């Protein structure tokens, strides 16, 4: 779960990590009020979950409350990378002597946290040359220690005798504490500003592990998923919207990706990724089909290799949904594994002959999608498709 900058800074402040004076606002009047409270030049920052808001004009400066109000008026209602700006953060404008970069994230390959620092902060870290980046893995059982932080500070070119050295060591310890105690996947400060003899987190990018949200009741919640993806998530389904016209449902992330790949190989365009996982019952199956149908596909492929999933359960759920809801597009089902025969018998009752092999089922689904496209005249919903004309969705199936 990505957190807005202002939320990240609230967490920082709770742990005593220095952040600029200021707070979140939702209207120009509030912006003016906060600017008045701060009583000097301010910065007004769009709160969107995108890293490129600076370049997109999402950050403005003002010298007084009136200016802040005007800036806020401009920013609210802007759209940055497709995201509407609805929240602003109004903060004191810092006198910047130097901008550093600091983050802690998880290195899956190393299986441990990694601290990344650079004396070249303020720009996107991807744009910082490798030679200016300092990477230090943190052993889980050792945690952050002063000697590690001191070494990183030094390698950033900050002398032990500088006024910032001790503050940075302390800040790194605090940031690691936040990272572990708040179940973060990423805590990033860019820029980390040296201002006079102070060290201040001028930005905050915090991402919390979704799987750990249950034990982080004090953190605010941010919903980044589309409404559909969220509905799927709540049902235990992993759902991603794609641009094509073939609905996909499979059980397992790998086989779902494999299904997409196979469809693509045969010239099809998947409309979605939907991993139904191991144990989807009738309700889950109904919901999954609903999500898929909402993408208005030309055909649907259901690819089940029953392990934990039992084929008869899937077939029963599908048959029941089909009977209740009808099925406006052709559905191709591949069904093998646990209780395969029972499952196929159930499908036969609703007029579906299951396939043995994924590639055959995929070929058929592509064929159906393309066939239908060639019948009617509706515009393709998929981008980059070569098919020129598409058919009305059949209600027969």
């Amino acid at each position: 779960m990505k957190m807005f900058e202002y939320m990240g800074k609230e967490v920082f402040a709770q742990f005593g990590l220095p952040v600029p004076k200021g707070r979140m606002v939702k209207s120009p009047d509030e912006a003016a009020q906060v600017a008045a409270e701060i009583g000097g030049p301010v910065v007004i920052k769009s709160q969107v979950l995108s890293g490129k808001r600076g370049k997109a004009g999402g950050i403005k400066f003002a010298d007084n409350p009136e200016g802040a109000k005007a800036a806020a008026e401009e920013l609210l209602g802007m759209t940055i990378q497709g995201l509407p700006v609805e929240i602003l953060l109004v903060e004191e404008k810092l006198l910047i002597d130097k901008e550093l970069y600091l983050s802690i994230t998880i290195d899956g390959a190393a299986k441990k946290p990694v601290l990344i620092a650079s004396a070249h902060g303020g720009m996107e870290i991807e744009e910082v040359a490798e030679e200016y980046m300092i990477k230090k893995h943190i052993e889980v059982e050792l945690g952050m220690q002063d000697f590690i932080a001191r070494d990183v500070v030094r390698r950033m070119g900050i002398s032990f005798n500088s006024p910032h050295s001790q503050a940075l060591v302390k800040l790194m310890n605090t940031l690691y504490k936040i990272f572990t105690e708040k179940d973060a996947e990423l805590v990033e400060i860019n820029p980390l500003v040296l201002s006079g003899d102070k060290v201040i987190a001028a930005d905050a990018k915090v991402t919390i592990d979704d799987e750990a949200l249950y034990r982080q009741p004090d953190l605010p919640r941010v919903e980044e998923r589309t409404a559909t993806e969220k509905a799927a998530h709540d049902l235990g389904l992993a759902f991603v919207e794609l641009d094509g016209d073939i609905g996909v449902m499979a059980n397992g992330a790998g086989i779902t990706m494999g299904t997409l790949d196979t469809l693509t190989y045969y010239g099809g365009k998947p409309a979605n990724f939907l991993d139904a996982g191991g144990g989807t019952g009738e309700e889950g199956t109904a919901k999954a089909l609903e999500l898929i149908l909402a993408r208005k596909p030309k055909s649907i492929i259901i690819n089940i290799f029953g392990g934990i999933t039992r084929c008869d359960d899937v077939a029963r759920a599908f048959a029941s949904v089909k009977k209740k809801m009808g099925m406006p597009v052709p559905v191709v089902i591949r069904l093998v594994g646990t209780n395969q025969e029972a499952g196929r018998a159930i499908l036969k009752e609703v007029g579906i002959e299951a396939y043995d092999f994924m590639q055959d089922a995929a070929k058929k689904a592509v064929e159906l999608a393309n066939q239908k496209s060639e019948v009617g005249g509706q515009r393709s919903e998929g981008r980059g498709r070569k098919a020129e004309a598409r058919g009305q969705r059949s209600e027969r199936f």
Partner: protein
Amino acid sequence: MAIIIDENTHVIVQGISGKQGLFHTQQMLAYGTKIVAGTSASKGGTTLEGIPVYDNVRTACANHTIDASVIFIPANGAKDAALEALEAGIKVVVVVTEHIPVHDEMAVVAYAKRVGAMVIGPNTFGIVSSGKCKMGIPPNPFFIPGSVGVVARSGTLTYEIVGNLTAQGIGQSTVVGMGGDRVVGLTFVDVLKEFEADPETKAVVLIGEIGGNAEEEASQYIREMTKPVVAYIAGKSAPAGKRMGHAGAIIERGKGTYQGKVNALTEAGVKVAELPFEVAEIIKDVLGR
């Protein structure tokens, strides 16, 4: 021979009395796995499927020789269960559970390293030494003994490919699921080394997916291997920036792409199948059948 587990492996099931734990205990027993004990917080002292159930792992270990544990404990208790097994001295711990917080996973993996133990998973289908021992959840019929080692990041895709192998009469020495999460115990390299050293294994199938750099790292080691490796990488058609089901299956900042992985593997001499079903065909060629 096989790697990691075999017909002499004595297994404990942690969380044996839960719905999943009990069902898969039955399945594992049916496959021939030597399950000698189970744990259950609420059913200690009873017997399930003829298996004695204990309150905790230490008590079970005091009463049985136990080589390996398979964990069916929900995500919020899985770290505790894994640490319990490791602390009791068990050297192979298979964590089937999914949705475990990543900080918990790092803690378990670090502690396993400290005590010199092996963690398979989390979020894995488990491990099968075909015809000898199954720990985890894959369907029994698709795993037959043979000389192909399989190592994978995802579950059903593995069944798909192993199913194809078996359908063509190609058996497997051991099939290992590393787990789909971002932090898991074993790496491809760990497992490839085991296969390289296993006399029974003649060829290896590596089933990867987009995201991370596990396949790229594997490529480095594969250059040193004497045994042929065939790979399939899922996610060729996945868009960047979207998490494809698995926590780790995401192309971020241009890293972990399909093409990068295929290039690295191809350069290391790996034959990469474009579709899952092609793997069995290529393996047949490789084994000269």
